[in-house]
Structure formats: C-alpha cells, structure tokens
C-alpha cells in the first residue's frame, strides 16, 4: 500500500524506478519456470569444485513491467532462453531515454535490449545511442515474404523494429457508472455527466491529443492544431477543466490498480493492461476505444551493448512472427507483421477471442489516431517544460 500511494504522488520532475523498485528478474537459460538461478549456480559451483566458472551467456532486457513484461516473458523470453541457452535478465523502466543516454555517455552500458516508444527509438538512434538494425537478420514472414515487405509500413526504423501495436485508451470502472456510461473521449473530460477522479499519465504526450479530440478537434487536425500556439492553449485549457480531479500515474501497471482501488473512476491506460485485468482478474473495467492513440512498441539494441552477439540473436528471435503472435496470446497487442495479423487467435489462459480486443481491429481503430512520433521527438523537451509549468500553476 505504501509503495502504491507513493507512486501516485511521485513527483513530475524525477523519474524513479517503477513499481517494485528497480525490479529485475531472471529467465534462466534452459529452464522454463522461475526456479532460483542462485540454486543452479550453487549446484554448478559445487560440481566444478568451487572454482570460479565462466557464466553462461546472458543479456539484459529492459521492458515496461507488470502484466506486459510477464506476457513477453512467457511469449518469447523463456522460449528464447531455453532454445538458445542464453539467460535473459529482465529489468523494468518507465520509458524515456535518460537512463540509456547516461549509460552510453559514461561508457558504462549494462542494458542490452530495450522495449521503447517510437519517438524515443528515433531520437535515440539520431543521437547514436542505439545500434542500427540489420534488416537482413530479420526472419521472413509466415508466408515467406521478406521481412521488409512483411512489416507494416512505418514500423521499421533505423535502429528499431516495431514488435507490436498498442494503444493508449481510457477505461472506466463499470461499478461506478451503472446507468449512463461514458462512450466518447469527450466524456472523459465531462465531470458533470461522469463525476469522479481521472487517472492520466504524467507526461504531455497523449494527454494533449486527448484534450484536443475531446474539445472537438477533428482527428486529422489534432497534430496540425498542436503546431500552433492557439492549439496548445486550447489543449491546456481543456486539461485545466479537470486538473483538480486528475491523479497522475507513471508506470503502466498503475491504472488498473487505481481503477480497482476506486482511487479513480476512469483512467487513461495501455489497452493490454486493462484487457489483462478484465480477463485474468475479472475486473469490471470497460475500454473506450473512441479517440484511442495507436503507437508501435519498438525493440532496440543499446549502442555498446556488452552482450552484442547475444542481443542480436535475441533481437532476431523477438521480431519473428512467431514471437509477435505469441505475445498476442497473453496480452491484447497485435503483430506489426502483415503475415501475423491473420494468426491472431485466443487468449491462452482463458480462451477469449483476441480479435475484438486488439487496437488494430477495424471497429476499435475507427475513431483512433496514429501517434505522431516525429512531432513529439522534436517537441518533447519544450512540451515537457510547458507541461511542468502547467502542473505548477
């Protein structure tokens, strides 16, 4: 409880480790479960007569924690570890380039593969923080098409490969709105019709877009509006209207928790996290797809990765159709390869059909917006300052 409330109040100005602190887990090579790697090491040490031994190859994979990281762990970290014999250590973070920049600039790189947002992957690449992708190393599609043609346009960048589509949506707790239910993005900002506190991610990204869409800006003009001073003012004015009722979150695992605790009645969230709470915990959450913001999650290798060979092998494994489809059996994120779309099936643990829950399913994407990573990678520093200034007002 302490940690949870601490996170809710976490300052906007510093980013601390996500829930559970700088949590790191290990997926030991050749072992499918989570039986202690320490025990294994001890055993090996005994067998070799206590002499120091060269450890098996390993790499550090940094991801977003919570149910998403667990899904990836089952879908491809563990299969990779058991097939290749390379140990995958898992760390959590909450996005951003700061930690990678610090590692690269001080020459003390200890992350190998990172799961990041598109805008960060492009910026990190431009700044030389990431290894360029070797397109030749990407496996062909399920139908044998070469990788370059199989990936949806725009999901491959110079240093990153999109492995899934995810979207930021808002969800509400059905128990709080038994009668009239929210159905549009405008409803999220309507405190009169739908009273209660709102959860939002403590960043300007996504919130600005939501605010403009809710204020009536047509989908195709949202980013055009953000390019103007009036548009920015309009977005902040809209955010102002609910400012006192916002509870800020930072880690993707927080919104489902906040909705369940009743701390908020609705919250922006990553769609997969809400889905997992729905099917695995039977939470009465409802996703509102209207105004969803679609983005691709990128996998990148950090420049100067200490385990480059292992990282490359892992990277190739993770970007196969098989891995992408496997992730979609644990959490509702859809493949970025065209040959993977047809293979979307059911949720492995509950047998729920995944198609209606994917962000790219036409009904869900109908009133959605594609996240403009180029605009954000240019304006993130300035927008952060505006956002902080607004928070302080």
């Amino acid at each position, binding site marked *: *409880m*302490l940690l949870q*409330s*601490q996170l*809710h*109040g976490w*300052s*906007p*100005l*510093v*980013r601390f480790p996500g829930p559970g602190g700088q949590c790191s887990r290990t997926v030991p090579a050749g072992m499918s479960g989570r039986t202690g790697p320490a025990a294994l090491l001890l055993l090996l040490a005994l067998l070799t007569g206590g002499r120091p031994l060269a450890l098996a190859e390993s790499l550090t994979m940094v991801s977003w924690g919570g149910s998403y990281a667990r899904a990836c762990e089952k879908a491809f970290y563990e299969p990779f570890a058991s097939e290749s014999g390379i140990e995958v250590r898992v760390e959590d973070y909450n996005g*951003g380039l*700061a930690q990678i*920049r*610090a590692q690269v600039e001080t020459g003390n790189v200890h992350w190998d593969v990172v799961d990041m947002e598109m805008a960060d992957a492009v*910026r990190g*690449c*431009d*700044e*030389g*923080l990431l290894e360029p992708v070797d397109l030749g190393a990407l496996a062909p599609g399920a139908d044998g098409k070469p990788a370059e043609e199989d990936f949806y346009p725009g999901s491959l960048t110079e240093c990153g490969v999109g492995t899934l589509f995810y979207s930021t949506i808002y969800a509400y707790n059905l128990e709080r709105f038994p009668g009239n239910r929210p159905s549009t993005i405008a409803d999220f900002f309507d405190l009169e019709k739908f009273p209660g506190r709102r959860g939002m991610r403590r960043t300007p990204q996504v919130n600005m877009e939501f605010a403009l869409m809710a204020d009536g800006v047509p989908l195709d003009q949202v980013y055009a509006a953000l390019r103007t001073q009036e548009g*920015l*003012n309009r977005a*902040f004015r809209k955010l102002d209207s609910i400012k006192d009722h916002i509870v*800020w979150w930072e880690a993707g695992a927080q919104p489902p928790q906040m909705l369940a605790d009743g701390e908020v009645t609705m919250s922006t969230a990553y769609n997969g996290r809400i889905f997992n709470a729905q099917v695995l915990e039977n939470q009465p959450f409802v996703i509102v797809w209207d105004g969803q913001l679609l983005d691709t999650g990128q996998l990148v290798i950090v420049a100067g990765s200490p385990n480059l060979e292992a990282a490359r092998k892992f990277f190739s494994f993770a970007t196969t159709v098989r891995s992408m489809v496997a992730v979609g059996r644990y959490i509702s994120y859809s493949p970025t390869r065209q040959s993977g779309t047809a293979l979307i099936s059911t949720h492995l643990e509950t047998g729920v059909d995944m198609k209606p829950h994917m962000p790219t399913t036409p009904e869900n994407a109908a009133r959605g917006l594609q996240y403009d990573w*180029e605009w954000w*990678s*240019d*304006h993130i*520093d*300035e927008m*952060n*300052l*505006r956002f*902080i*200034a*607004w*928070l*302080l007002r």
Partner: protein
Amino acid sequence: MRPAVLVLPLAAFILVTFVAPLLVMLGRSVHDPMVADALPETLGLLRSWDGKRVPPEAVFETMARELLKARREKSLGRIATRVNRVQAGLRSVLMKSVRRLRGAQPPDSWREAMIALDPKWGQTRTWHAIRRAGERFTLRHYLHALDMDQAPGGGIIRQPPDLRIYLPLLRRTLAVSLGITLLCLLLGYPIAYLIANAPPHRANLLLLLVLVPFWTSLLVRTTSWIVLLQTQGVINDLLAAVGLIADDQRISMIYNMTGTVVAMTHVLLPFMVLPLFSVMRTIPPLYMSAAASLGASFLQAFRRVYWPQTLPGVAAGSLLVFILAIGYYITPALVGGQSGQLISNMVAYHMQQSLNWGLAAALGGILLGGVFLLYLVFNRLVGVDRMRLG
C-alpha cells in the same frame, strides 16, 4: 607550517571531490563547445552574415558538408539536440535533411535543395538559432534559468507566460524555506531551552531524542511521514475512526505543499535545536533570576536579558536551516506531489531527464549566488564571528 601540512589531506580531498566538480559544472553553465567544434566553417561564414536575408549558397554548402561529417562521426544527434534547445522543431529539420542528403548526388544548388527538403532552411530564424547554438560561451542558460530569452534580433525578452517556470519556482522555494526556518525556530527554541535548563540526566535523554532522528536516514524519516500522512495513513485512519472526518473526506496532507513543509521542518529541526542548545547552555540561569529580582516580569526578562544572548544561536540555526532548505531535493521529490516541488527538483529534472546540464548548472549557479549573497548580508547584520554552531 605544521598546521598547513595537517590540513593538506583534507584540502586535497575537498579540492578533488568538491571544488573541482563545482567549477566544472559552473563552467558548463556558460561554456558549450559542442556545436562550435562541429560546424566551425559554417559558423565562421555566418559571422559575416547580415542576418536579414537567407544566407548565400556557400553557407548552405558548408553546412551540408559539415552536417554530413558530423553524421559520420555520430555527433549529429547531439548537435541537433542543442540547436533544438534554442529553437524547438529544428532537430528533425537537421536530422531529416541529413538523412535525405546522405547518399544523394550533390545538388547544383545546396540552397535550393535544402529549402526544398524543408522550408525552415529558408527562414532567417533558423540561421539565427544555429548561430546562437554555436556560441562557445553563452549566457543563454542563465537567461533561461531566469525565464528570459534572447530575441532573434538581439536584445533580451521575457519568456511567454506559459513557459515561465523557474522564477515562480524560485520565489516559491524562497518563501517555503523562510516559512520552514520560522517554523523550526518556533518549535526548536522551547525545546532547546528545555534541554539547556534541565537537570543533566534529563537533558541527556532529551538531547538523545533530538539526536536519534538526526542520525536516522533521511529516506526513512521521509517515508515515515508518508505512512503517517497519506489518505489511507495513520492520522487519517485515526481521525476517521473517532469520527472527526467522514471516511470519504479524508484530508490530503501529503503529495502537496503541506507534506513538503511538514516533512522538511521535521528533517531540519535538529539543525535549529543544536546551535540554539549550545548557546543556551552557556547562559547562566542566574541572569534570569537577577532580572526577576530587579522587578522584571518573565516576559520582560526574556525579551531584554535572555533573547539577546541567544541571538548568535538563533542566527546560526536559522542560517543553517534556510540554506539547507533552499537546496533541498529528496523530501520534496518524495512527498511534494506536484504542488510541493522546489527549484532543486527542476535541477534534478535537467540533470536526469532532459540532460540539459548547462541549464541545470545555471540554476545551481543562481542558487549558489543567492546563498553567498545571503551570507554577505548576514555577515553585515549579525557578524559571522558572533555565530555559534555548537
């Protein structure tokens, strides 16, 4: 000679671990050679540019050549980030242009080719921004730290209201520090008096009660306040249990300014109590009795006899608490929420998140200057030699 040798290890230690980094950081606040080193020829040509019309072909050609070279040396991203700090939006103009120009045949006119790639190349603002980002020594960071900026044509302007952050924060930091200092004085003075005038065994116990929290980790003390003050915390639970507040109307006492002030006052209290105690200990209780025997009421005696003698302690404690409060970081970061942030959290933001170390250094420099100024004023008013720290 001998004293000098004896302090030499300490002096060397301080020089290496404190003075040198401080100077390096202060240097960063005015000095950034990154862009100047990467685009020497372009900047040389821009020096003779009139600044009114779009620069000539030669400037474009040199710029393209030097940008392509920077790209090969993997410094382009860092250059683009710095230019982008002067004018947001130029990062992608630089990156995109280089991406397109790389590998392509050299065009007949670089100027036309680049303007065709992005119309921003045809705006004088862009070139002003590049010229400013290329200044080896600059006061830009200090201007930004004071919510000001250079106008493209020269001269200094204030930032638009929605980008003013640092001055309001600085004002807030000063006000909060002052408030905390007063609170500490109000709370600490009676305690120090009690300890100074208690019989020895009780004084020791009381002093221990002040010292134990003082020795306890800052993080532990701050997180204890979270346990106490949060909405589902001990105090709210108690209030709700005895029915003073309704269960759905619990008071928010943390993640706002209240949390910052409460936790910081607690953390800084020993810094007030200890100097006060050490001064009060030396004031013979007989003085007060003497004043009383001469007919002074307790208040009179206190005001005219006791209080003036404790002034060095008051001054020392207040100065210590105030200076510590002004630069405080961890506590507001943990319990300040969004309304309880202080200027130091902004320094941390620029150190860790935006990685604009120049600006972080400038903010730190301004704080340092402020503390020095305070010290000088204090020295004038009270005299540092009268101060007693213990």
